[in-house]
C-alpha cells in the first residue's frame, strides 16, 4: 500500500508530511510515558517482524495482492504510541534502503499505514474488547477484527488524499469503490495474520501484550495475598 512519488501532488504530500511529523512527535512523547522497560526491546522486535511480514504479499483477487500493514498488530502488542513508531521505522527503512514508497510520499504513507492503523485500529480494538469477554480469545478476536477494519480505514485515508490532491483523472467515487473493495479482502488477510500473531504471543508471554494488560495472569502477576507462590519468583 506504499504510495510512490507522483500519485499525490506536492502540497498535499507536504501537508501529510506535517501531519506525520506531528503524529510521530506525539507518539514519541506518549510512548516515553507509557512504554515499560520490558516492552522496549519487544517494540524493536515488532518493527522487525512487521518488516518481514510486509514482504509476504498474498494473493487476494485476480492479479492483485496485499500485505500486512501491521499498525493495529503493533498497537495491541506494545501500545498505540510505540506501535505507530514501529510502523514508521519500517516505512523509513523501506523508503531509504529498498526504494519502496516514495520519499516525498513518506508523510502520506506514515499517516495511512502507521498512524491510522495504529491509532484507529487500537480504538476499534478497545471498542471490541468491551463487547467481548475479557479472555485471551476475546483479545485475539478483537485484535484480528480491528486490524482488518484498520486496513479499510487506511484505504479511505488514501482516497481522502487522492480527493485532495491526486494526479489522475479517475473520479473519486470510482476510486473509493475500488479501494474499499480490494482492501476489504486484504483486511481479511491482515486480520488472520494479526490474530495468529497476537494469539501466539498471548500463549507464550501474555504479560508482554499491552492490549491484554488487564487480563489476570494469576501464576505470575497476581498471587493471592499470603500465597506462598509469590515467593517463587
Amino acid at each position, binding site marked *: 500500500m506504499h504510495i510512490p512519488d507522483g500519485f499525490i501532488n506536492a502540497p498535499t504530500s507536504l501537508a501529510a508530511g506535517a501531519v506525520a511529523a506531528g503524529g510521530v512527535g506525539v507518539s*514519541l512523547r506518549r510512548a516515553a510515558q507509557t*512504554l515499560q522497560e520490558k516492552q522496549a526491546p519487544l517494540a524493536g522486535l515488532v518493527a522487525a517482524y512487521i518488516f*518481514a511480514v510486509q514482504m509476504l504479499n498474498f494473493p487476494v483477487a485476480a*492479479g492483485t495482492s496485499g*500485505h500486512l500493514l501491521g499498525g493495529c498488530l503493533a498497537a495491541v502488542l506494545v501500545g498505540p504510541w510505540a506501535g505507530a513508531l514501529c510502523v514508521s521505522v519500517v516505512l523509513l527503512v523501506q523508503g531509504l*534502503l529498498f526504494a519502496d514508497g516514495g520519499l516525498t510520499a513518506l508523510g502520506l504513507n506514515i499517516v495511512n499505514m502507521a498512524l491510522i492503523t495504529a491509532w484507529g485500529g487500537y480504538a476499534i480494538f478497545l471498542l471490541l474488547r468491551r463487547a467481548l469477554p475479557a479472555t485471551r480469545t476475546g483479545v485475539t478476536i478483537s485484535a484480528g477484527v480491528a486490524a482488518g477494519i484498520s486496513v479499510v480505514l487506511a484505504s479511505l485515508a488514501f482516497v481522502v488524499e487522492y480527493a485532495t490532491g491526486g494526479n489522475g*483523472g479517475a473520479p473519486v467515487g470510482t476510486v473509493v469503490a*475500488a479501494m474499499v473493495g480490494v482492501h476489504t479482502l486484504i483486511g481479511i488477510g491482515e486480520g488472520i495474520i494479526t490474530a495468529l500473531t497476537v494469539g501466539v504471543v498471548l500463549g507464550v*508471554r501474555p504479560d508482554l501484550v499491552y492490549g491484554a494488560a488487564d487480563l489476570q495472569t494469576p501464576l505470575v502477576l497476581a498471587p493471592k495475598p499470603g500465597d506462598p507462590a509469590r515467593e517463587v519468583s
Partner: protein
Amino acid sequence: MRSSNLRIFLLGGLLVAIGLAMLVSGFASGSPDGLNKVAEDHGIAANAKAHRLESGPLAGYAVKGVGNNRLGTGISGLIGVLVTFGIGLALFAAVRAMRSGRDRSEPTRAP
C-alpha cells in the same frame, strides 16, 4: 529468570522474522498490491515518478550483482530485518531514556 526468558522470546521472535523475510518471501505474490492495482486500473499509476533511490544497492528488495531473484530477495529480507531491529532497539531505548527520572515506579522484578 524473567529477563533470560525475555531474551529467549526476543531471539525466537527475531529468528521467526528472519525466516519469514529470507525464506518465505521468495513465495510471495508478485502481483501489484491493492493500491497499485487500483492505480493501474484507473489511470493514477501513469503519474508515478521513479524512486529517487531506485539505483540503490538494495532497491526493490533485490541485491545489486546478485542475479538469482530469490537469493537477492532473501538477502534483502535479512538485511532489512536486522536493520529494522537495530533501529527499533535504539529508538525505543532512547524513548525509554526520554522518560525523566520522575516516573520510575514500575513493578520491580524479583526482590
